[in-house]
């Protein structure tokens, strides 16, 4: 009896991702058939492969926090702050005539360090003080934005070494580097969240933090870990964006915030925590990318694209729930 329930449990979640996969194949085929000369070209596929990673990394950064029953509204400004301070280091060292290799190594280090500091702040307010994640990260996001503006005074940081542009603009064997980085991130996130004891604890906190604490898990430590991991992902997205846009500014990527929440829930993550798969989020990001690029190429009005995206979000979730509902009845 218990075993049977477990099987059903597993099947249900496999189906969620399978439905997403079918939808992805569907929209991809749909766009390809409608416009083989423009959509299904090497150039467009490559350009999508350049665009997807920064959004995809943000979506995973959002998902890992949602899994614990929280939300991270500071992802875009964490990324911006890391990019601005990292960018300052890159630009200053370049002007000082220090070798590009050393400059880039130092710069990348600063990106990660600053993001880690942001992650610590989030961890502190959420785990140590115990403020509701939504309000806590709204506060820290305002704070990070303020620090960004204070540094840049509203301008952009530029003047990076040319070699830095390599990260966002080069393809290895036809595969863009951002895509390679994204694949690495996906694999790491998968092992960390779904194959390690740390991940298991994170999901447990999402289901029930009190019970998790009583079963001997240090909820505080795990939450710190999750916010730090989320912050590092933001730094990686920041590196890609700074390199692709050859500059750093507080407003870059601000439109990714709500899109990341949408991608995470479209990917099947339970907004109340406890469930969410990396592969689901990745599929959701791919679906959004294909629809957005496809409709864009066809010249559909941007606001109509918004309407279509909203419709798809509701439709897919309804489909998922109808599916699972039927199984429960059967």
């Amino acid at each position, binding site marked *: 009896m218990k075993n049977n329930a477990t099987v059903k449990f597993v099947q249900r979640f496999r189906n969620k991702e399978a439905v997403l996969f079918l939808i992805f194949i569907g929209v991809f085929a749909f766009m390809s058939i409608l416009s083989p000369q423009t959509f299904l070209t090497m150039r467009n596929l490559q350009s999508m492969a350049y665009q997807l990673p920064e959004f995809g990394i943000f979506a995973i950064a959002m998902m890992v926090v949602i899994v614990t029953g929280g939300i991270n509204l500071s992802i875009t400004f964490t990324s911006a702050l890391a990019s601005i301070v990292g960018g300052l280091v890159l630009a200053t060292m370049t002007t000082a005539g220090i070798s590009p290799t050393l400059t880039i190594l130092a710069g990348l280090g600063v990106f990660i360090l600053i993001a880690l500091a942001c992650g610590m702040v989030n961890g502190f307010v959420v785990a140590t003080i115990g403020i509701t994640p939504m309000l806590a990260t709204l506060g820290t996001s*305002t704070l990070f934005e*303020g620090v960004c*503006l204070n540094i840049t005074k509203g301008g952009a940081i530029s003047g990076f070494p040319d070699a830095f542009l390599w990260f966002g603009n080069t393809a290895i064997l036809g595969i863009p580097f951002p895509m390679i980085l994204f694949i690495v991130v996906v694999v790491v996130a998968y092992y960390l969240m779904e194959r390690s004891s740390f991940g298991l604890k994170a999901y447990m906190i999402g289901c029930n933090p009190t019970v998790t604490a009583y079963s001997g898990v240090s909820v505080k430590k795990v939450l710190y870990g999750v916010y730090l991991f989320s912050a590092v992902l933001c730094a990686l997205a920041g590196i890609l964006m700074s390199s692709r846009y050859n500059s750093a500014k507080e407003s870059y990527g601000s439109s990714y915030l709500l899109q990341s929440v949408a991608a995470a829930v479209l990917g099947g993550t339970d907004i*109340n925590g406890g469930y969410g798969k990396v592969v689901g989020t990745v599929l959701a990001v791919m679906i959004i990318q294909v629809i957005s690029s496809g409709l864009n190429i066809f010249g559909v009005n941007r606001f109509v694209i918004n309407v279509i995206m*909203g419709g798809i979000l509701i439709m897919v979730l309804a489909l998922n729930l109808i599916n699972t509902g039927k199984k429960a009845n059967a």
Partner: protein
Amino acid sequence: MKLKTKLKQNREFGILGILILVSIIIALNSSAFLTVENLFDMLKGNVVLGIMSLGMLLVLLTGGIDVSVGSMVAAVTVIVGQFLMHVSGNVFLALLVGCAAGTAMGLVNGVLIAKLRIPPIVVTLGTMSIIIGLTLYWTNGTWITGLPKNFIDFGRQTIGSFYQQGDEMIGFPVQILFLVFAAILTWLILKYTLVGRGIYAMGGNRVSAERVGYNLDRITIFLYAYEGFIVGLAGVVHTSIMRQVDPNAFNGFEMQVIAAVVLGGASTLGGYGSVLGTILGVALFTVINNGLILMHIPTFWQKIVVGIVLIASIGFDVVQKRYWDSHTTKVDIEEA
């Protein structure tokens, strides 16, 4: 002991204390803060936020969330604007149209959430995208200006005249009445109706609420529709203050509304929150933003200050509650 218990039981006390503290700090640094004039300005400038927070309160109480309010209120202002320009300049009819439009949109949210059993954040993220997409596709962001004179006159009415400034008499802005109305209505619903009890029950524990006999679907539909109704009210009030309609005026407004309610002590997991707390949350939000320029804080430091004050005040609230909780527990044990 009595005070301690009271502090523990009334979460509003913490937020009230912080509100007073922040107000004192601002008043010490700016003579313009504690004036009737500034009070009226703050009221008028934030009445829309206040009204919308009351609708959001009910939604948060059940553990739901509505991120579509920003797009809904934008759509309402456009509909009301078109109505005023092309059908009738009657204030009462405009209110009716606005509330009907808001309620209709809220109903869609409610039905989708209750009947399809999709999590509220997903439904409202979706409807947000759809509503704002349609609104901007329809209007292309064009402002509606030159609203009928009697509507503008209505928006400028004041209750009583307190003092003369320049060539204008300054009084109690008429828009406050709508906030008072919404607050009383929401309070009555929560305190005296079956639905109100059901809302708290549902936020506390869905399963037991259902067992006790509450019809959760009906409550859900009601409260999202009510939120829509409130948004409709807010849309008309906003239009009466601004005297024009800008379809982009509410970009990102939903987060402010949610933050104000949560700041007022409501839990995003449901079950706790009150009308008084929400009003205090909106007031704290208002006072912090008002204080920035009055205290001559440089532009590039303002966001940093807001972020820190936000975290510090809510953090203080949380820590203090935890202290009282542990303290009272200890006392109880000792007494036993």
